[in-house]
Structures are given as C-alpha cells and as structure tokens.
C-alpha cells in the first residue's frame, strides 16, 4: 500500500468509527428534549426518570464521540497537508466554527444537563436540554457544510498567485444546496438511530417483564418520533439524490450501475448484477420513470451513463491541460493578462488534468493513452456503490415498517402483547448503524477519485510523509478505537442491564458514571 491508500484507509477507519457514535448522539439529544418536555408538561416523575436514564446512555456515547472525532481533524494536517494547503481557505472556516460551537454551546449545556438537575427549575433545565440538542445538531450542520463543499465546491476560485482555492462567496459555501440536503438527511438518520436504540432497549425490558411502565412510555416516544424521522430520511435522501444527480453524475451512474445513458424517462434499477468486464448489468429489474423523477425531477431528461461520462472526462482532461499549460506560462510571465484570461476560461477543468498526476509528474506531456486511462479512473467502485446503496435503502424502508407497526401498537396500547414484534424490534438494533455506515460509503467512497469533486484528485491531497508513519498511526488508532468501542459497549450494556431503577438510585452514583 502506498501513502495514498494508507492515508485513505486511516481516514476511512477513523470516520467509520466516529460515525458509530454520532448518529446516536444526534438522535438521543432530541429524544431527551421530547421526554423532558413531556415531564415538564405532565409533572409525572416517571418522565424525569426516562430523561435521566436515557441521559446516562447519551453521556457514555457523547464522550466516545468526542474522543473519536478529535483525531480526524488532526489528520487534515498530518496526512492531508497538500489538501489543507490547497483548499484550507475554504474548508477550514466551517471546520473551525464546528469546533467552536462544540466547545462553547454543546460542552457547556451537556454539563448543565448532567449536573444542574437540582440547581435549575424544571423549565430552565428543559431549556438547557434543548440547547444541548440544538448545539449537537448545529455541530453536524457545520461539519456537513464542510463536507458538502467537498461534494459540490461552490463559492471558491483558484488563485494563480497563491496556487490554491480561495473563498469568493462565503454565503454560497454556507447555503450550498448539497450541504443543506446532506444535513437534513444525516440528522434525520441520526434521529432514526436514536429511536431504534430506545425502541430496541425498551423491547428488551418488555420481553423480560422489567420496568414495564418505563419501557412502554419510552417505546411510545421512540415509535412516533422514529416514524416521522424514518419517513423524513427517505424524503430527504431523495433530495440528496437530486442534488447528486445535478452535480455528481458519475456517482449516480455508479450507484445505478448504469453503463449506458438511460433515455428519458429514465428507469431505476432495483436489482441487477454489475459486470465490470463487459460494462453491463445482468438480470436487471427496473422501475420505469423512477430514476428520471429522482435525479432530474422530470420525465423528459436522459440520465448520462458511465461510458458517456468517461467520454466527457476525456475532453475535460484535455481542456484542463490547457489550463495547466497556461499556469506553467504564468509562472514564467506572472504579469501577462492574456495568459490569465486564458486560465480563467479553462480553470474549471484544471482538476481533471491533475488526474494525470497519478501517472506522470510532467502531465503536460501526457500521451493520449494516459489521458484515456485518467478518464477511466473517474469511475468509482461500481459494485460496492450499487450494493451499499440498495442495502441502505432496504434498511430504511424496513425501519419505516418497524416504526409504523410500533406506532400502531402503541396507539392501541398493545405494545407488550406481541412478543414476536418485541423480538423483531430488539434484533433491529444494529440496522440503523449499518445503514448510516453504508450511507457514508455511498457519499464518500462514491466521490472517488476526487477529494474535492472535479477540483482536486484524492491522490494529490496527501502529505509528503513516510508510509511507515501512516501505517504506525493507523495501527495505533485501530487499537485505541477498539479499546474505546469495548469500553463503550461495556458501559452501555452495564447500564442497560441495571435498568432505570438501579441506574438512577442511589443518585450519588449517577453523575460519576455518566461522566466516565
């Protein structure tokens, strides 16, 4: 493995680990707000117990999320130095705001949530809980604005003097449609994760006949909030599909294993077996019109296939080489206005020319065969994207059915009557995490070979460091994060087994445990 593969693997491992904790934090924070609102409205102590017990599990997860998130930010400097130099002017701002928001809003109110029960009135504590939930979700907003820019780099321009991308319109970065769609989709997925967590643990209690009143109420909240969230994930995921269809056509084509352009109205492939050798998808089962409606919001626009997009990439590389040659000339004649005008005309495809850097450093001398190879390298891993997307969507629809059933049973006060349903609810516990991790694969692995779509190839973003250093730190992360995961599972299982009665009494034991 070279430095590029190792750096990618390290970021993927840390991101996937981190994303085990994030969705649950997002979801539980809102659920705590809802439960505490009911407590304030009804004044029934059982609702306070709900908030405190799920709050302990939230606290364990929150601490692990913070610990695994910090290392990712440092990797931009250690493993992705050229990336940080090339796009740091744009990417750094939302990342810094996210850090500050977590430091000032989230961290402050998480302290109030755990330690100020006896120092605040009920309404004041409720406000603190909601501010914690809002802070948690706002952190996700800023990190997804940064990530959205990597998928759709708007509001920035290449500066030939500093040789990097610089912000030209911060509001465009902020209101990037891809970032907004990703934010609502991701936080909704987090709400689903939190709801499944509460639903599954409550089902476990009901199956064992323990804490029945507590579990019924928890399940009722999880079922209603989970149903609304699961429906939102699908609707908002559709919006993500539309924005990707506008700006990341190759990703959509790869998700669909769509080698040839799909004429209007484009069909959606429900099932098929992608064949990389023949550029075909065997045994396709298609839904007419569906892809056109998702990706173009119309029935009269074709959706370009992989082969056509590779063909386009070939010409974009050639156009990018004009920008590259012009940059070389500007280096020799920095004040030549005509050269700068030429660069302005072709700079949009400069990133495509940089794809050739994987093959040779003097890319201005690239052969036609090398340009063809670089164009072919714009195809992501089709089978991985095809199946990841379908499993993610399949889990999404299963969870809608699960929550709809739970909601229906809850409305009729029959939640603990059907043991088969409680078993299904309990064994569904890992599903939202699997869907969330697959979603990350679709979004980030599907963006390859770009680290910034169309602007900077991933291979160019890495640091000039020894691969041994990256391998050493990667092994360190795997060991350290595995230890954290074991600690997380140990603590969660410990408190779940204890249940609300034992976990919440005596009160003196709560605070240290939650702070662990």
């Amino acid at each position, binding site marked *: 493995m070279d430095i590029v593969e190792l750096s990618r693997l390290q970021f993927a491992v840390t991101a996937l680990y981190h994303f085990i904790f994030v969705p649950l934090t997002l979801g539980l924070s809102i659920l705590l707000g809802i439960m505490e609102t009911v407590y304030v409205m009804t004044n029934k102590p059982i609702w306070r117990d709900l908030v405190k017990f799920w709050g302990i599990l939230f606290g364990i997860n929150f601490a692990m999320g913070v610990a695994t998130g910090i290392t990712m930010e440092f990797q931009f400097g250690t493993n992705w130095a050229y990336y940080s*130099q090339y796009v740091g002017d744009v990417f750094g701002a939302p990342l810094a705001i996210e850090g500050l928001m977590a430091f000032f809003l989230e961290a402050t109110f998480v302290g109030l949530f755990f330690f100020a029960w006896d120092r605040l009135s009920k309404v004041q504590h409720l406000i603190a809980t909601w501010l914690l939930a809002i802070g948690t979700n706002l952190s996700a907003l800023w990190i997804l604005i940064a990530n959205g820019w990597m998928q759709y780099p708007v509001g920035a321009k290449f500066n030939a003097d500093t040789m990097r991308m610089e912000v030209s319109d911060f509001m465009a970065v902020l209101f990037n449609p891809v970032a907004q769609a990703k934010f609502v989709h991701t936080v909704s997925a987090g709400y689903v994760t939190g709801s499944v967590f509460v639903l599954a643990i409550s089902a476990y209690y009901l199956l064992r006949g323990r804490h029945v009143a507590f579990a019924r109420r928890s399940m009722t909240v999880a079922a209603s909030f989970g149903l609304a969230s699961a429906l939102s994930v699908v609707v908002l995921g559709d919006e993500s599909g539309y924005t990707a269809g506008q700006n990341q056509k190759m990703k959509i084509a790869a998700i669909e294993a769509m080698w040839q352009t799909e004429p209007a109205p484009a069909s959606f492939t429900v099932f098929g077996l992608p064949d990389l050798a023949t550029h075909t998808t065997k045994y396709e089962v298609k839904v007419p019109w569906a892809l056109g409606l998702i990706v173009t919001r119309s029935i009269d626009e074709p959706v370009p296939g992989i082969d056509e997009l590779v063909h386009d990439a070939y010409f974009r590389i050639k156009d990018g080489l004009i920008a590259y040659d012009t940059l070389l000339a500007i280096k020799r004649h920095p004040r030549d206005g005509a050269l700068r005008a030429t660069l302005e005309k072709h700079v949009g495809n400069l990133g495509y020319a940089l794809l050739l850097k994987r093959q040779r450093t003097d890319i*201005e001398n690239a052969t036609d065969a090398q340009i063809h190879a670089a164009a072919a390298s714009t195809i992501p891993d089709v089978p991985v994207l095809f199946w990841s997307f379908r499993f993610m969507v399949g889990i999404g629809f299963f969870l809608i059915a699960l929550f709809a059933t739970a909601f229906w049973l809850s409305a009729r006060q029959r939640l603990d009557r059907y043991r088969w349903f409680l078993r299904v609810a309990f064994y569904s516990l890992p599903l939202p995490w699997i869907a969330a991790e697959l979603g990350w694969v679709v979004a980030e692995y599907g963006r390859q070979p770009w680290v910034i779509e169309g602007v900077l190839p991933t291979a160019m973003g890495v640091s000039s460091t020894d691969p041994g250093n990256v391998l050493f730190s990667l092994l360190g992360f795997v060991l350290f994060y595995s230890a954290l995961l074991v600690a997380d599972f140990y603590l969660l299982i410990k408190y779940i087994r204890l249940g609300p009665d034992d976990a919440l009494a005596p009160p003196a034991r709560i605070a240290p445990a939650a702070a662990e």
Partner: protein
Amino acid sequence: MFPAVLRREIIGLLIAKAALLSALYFLFFSPAHRIDPAPGLIQSHLLNDR
C-alpha cells in the same frame, strides 16, 4: 433565564474558555508562529518544477 449564581458560573466558564482559546492561539497559532509553506514547494507539487 438561569439563577444568578449559575448565570455567573456559566458566564465565567465561557469567558475562561474564550481566554483559554485565545491564549492557545497567541501562544501557538498566531501568524508569528505560522510557518508558511515554501512557495516553490507548493508550486512544484501542482506544477512540474523545471
């Protein structure tokens, strides 16, 4: 919104956090501490340095 004592504690904590961040910035990350990447090196990574 919060009791006076707690309000003072929260404000104090936020000021302490801001002071700590500022101190970290001025001690380690201010422009004086920043090592600008060599312009030649940046160019050579993007352009073929000849």
